[in-house]
């Protein structure tokens, strides 16, 4: 009933004019995007310093810094446009999923060869993106085999250069946002010709982020009922799988609330929907989705996934149209 009422309200034209939209984009750029990338850059700086101070895999400071920086990355990982796409920076920060096991293979070959590329940050950016970023560092900190493979001195250099590369990438993204892309997104021009196009980019970031969390963060470990794949969970080695879902939902809720601000009824529906998903995630007594192999465990993860899909449906049916996004059968298909 409430849902019907909201749909009826939304059928009325969105009252926002160009200056309202401009104000909304400005707020999102400042409070969601720049804040997020600022935090990422400061956390990656701490990570780099921690690696320089103590590169051993069991260093509590290093592990804590890695967790903090990874949280900051997950919180902006849905913003896949502009500076994060330049020079494949986002991929170099986060190469996952890795269905063919390229990350451990690439790390092993660097360690086996004692590849001197770890001595230069400039050269290290030519290394396969699978051997860079947060997921590569997870192998070096938490995987029993990779974290003890080969020569300890070389591994130490590898940890330090990956941390430095992460930090350089995070700063490059932040710098581009501050120097140019914040204005590109805010002020209509060559890349976004109108406020509507900028809002559509942000809407796409929201829906793609929701889809990634539902289909990939949850879908990959779920596998099929006949063949659950718990070892495909994201960052299970460090116990972060469920945590990453919660961090991403929190960031996506922030964006959804901002994008629906002119329609408080819709913001309320988003808040309720995200609240439900976050509660389900918190109640899941299964940090790495190991229980997807049992019927009960699988059922709970499925319920969490369904609750996220409900938010996706709400975004497609009620938010997209207010932002001028085509919601047709084929427009949404992607095939």
């Amino acid at each position: 009933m409430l849902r019907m009422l909201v749909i009826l309200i939304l059928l009325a034209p969105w009252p926002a004019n160009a200056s309202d939209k401009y104000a909304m984009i400005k707020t999102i750029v400042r409070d969601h995007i720049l804040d997020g990338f600022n935090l990422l850059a400061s956390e990656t700086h701490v990570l780099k310093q921690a690696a320089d101070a103590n590169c051993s895999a069991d260093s509590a400071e290093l592990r804590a810094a890695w967790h903090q920086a990874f949280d900051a990355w997950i919180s902006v990982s849905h913003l896949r446009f502009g500076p994060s796409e330049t020079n494949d920076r986002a991929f170099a920060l986060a190469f996952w999923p890795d269905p063919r096991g390229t990350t451990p293979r690439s790390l092993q070959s660097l360690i086996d060869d004692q590849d001197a590329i770890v001595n230069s940050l400039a050269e290290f950016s030519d290394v396969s993106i699978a051997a860079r970023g947060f997921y590569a560092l997870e192998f070096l900190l938490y995987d029993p085999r990779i974290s003890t493979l080969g020569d300890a001195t070389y591994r130490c250099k590898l940890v330090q250069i990956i941390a430095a590369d992460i930090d350089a990438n995070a700063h490059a993204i932040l710098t581009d946002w501050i120097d140019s892309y914040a204005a590109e997104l805010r002020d209509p021009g060559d890349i976004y010709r109108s406020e509507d196009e900028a809002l559509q980019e942000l809407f796409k970031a929201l829906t793609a982020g929701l889809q990634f969390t539902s289909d990939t963060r949850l879908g990959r470990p779920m596998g099929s009922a006949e063949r659950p794949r718990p070892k495909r969970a994201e960052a299970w080695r460090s116990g972060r799988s469920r945590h990453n879902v919660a961090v991403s939902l929190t960031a996506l809720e922030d964006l959804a609330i901002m994008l629906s601000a002119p329609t408080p009824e819709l913001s309320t529906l988003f808040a309720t929907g995200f609240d439900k998903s976050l509660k389900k995630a918190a109640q899941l007594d299964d940090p790495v989705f190991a229980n997807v192999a049992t019927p009960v465990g699988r059922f709970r993860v499925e319920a969490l996934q369904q609750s996220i899909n409900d938010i996706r449906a709400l975004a497609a049916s009620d938010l997209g149209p207010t932002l001028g996004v085509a919601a047709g059968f084929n427009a949404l298909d992607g095939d």
Partner: protein
Amino acid sequence: MVNRRGFLAGLLASGLVPVSTWADVGSPSFLAAARLPDDRFALCGIDAAGMILFHIPIPARGHAAAAHPVRAEAVAFARRPGTFASIINCASGEETARLASPKGRHFYGHGAFSSDGETLFTTENDYEAGQGRIGVWDATQGYARIAEFASGGIGPHEVRLLPDSDALVVANGGIDTHPDSGRTKLNLSTMHPNLSYLDFSGTLLDQVDLPDDLRSNSIRHLDVSHDGQVAIGMQWQRDRSSSPALVGLHNRGDAVDLMKAPLNLHRQAFGYVGSIAFSGNGKQLAVTCPRGGCVQVFDAVTCEFVGGHGSPDASGITGFGDGFIVSSGTGILRTIGEGDTMSVNHPLEWDNHLVRL
């Protein structure tokens, strides 16, 4: 016309029609998958005036179909990562058999027959290996699975027969997916699509790709002209700060010729082409842009932009007369070119492709 349409709509909605009664209404000219008003999915046979001759319920969303060159028969495919294909008797409108993809494979939604109609080829995903395959089925023996071979890349989508030869052209879109993760793209950072020419035993005859800066441009859809030119439709997988060409034309042995509408119109495509077709007379080619709600037409000789047509949620397209016929998610079937003479609105949502029989 209107009465008949309303009558059909009622029948579609009620689902009470015995399909065999459509045997006397003549052969369909087109096939298309659709979503019905009650959210069920169907395949529809459509005549040259845009009327629905029959519809066949299917268990899930459909995609495209392949027409048998001799018999009044077609194979309609599930949308990826679907695992079924329906064999349809186009004279009676009945489903005569249903194919299942082998274990460890799923269909991508497209297929093609050999010119004698004895063999069916299907694009498939060997999803554990992340490699594209072409499935080979014996259409003389109740569609027994007889072989398979490599498609020449990852994510093969549309496949077509080359005219006057026993060879196929395959759009290897380059995107690795696994049914466990739905439709999530697993290799966007390393994707590398190509266009592959293969003989019927899987020998790679020729392969062409796009320039390096376009390796994120997934080559997805094809049409082949009577003289063997291949038109390709792309889907850009990166953000909008660059908006490369989405349409190309290839002659074997040459590089791909790319074409683009004027910038403002080009950007209306939102980096995404739904289907591509040569006009009935082969002089033009056109793409549907469902995200931008338009159809863009190009000259097939000069590669110059000819014109754009607003068409909300347009996706299926095929050559028709001197122009094209287009299907949309809004239910509209319409002609483009030569006077735009036909526009029929059906109470359903047409799915991706419109296949000429």
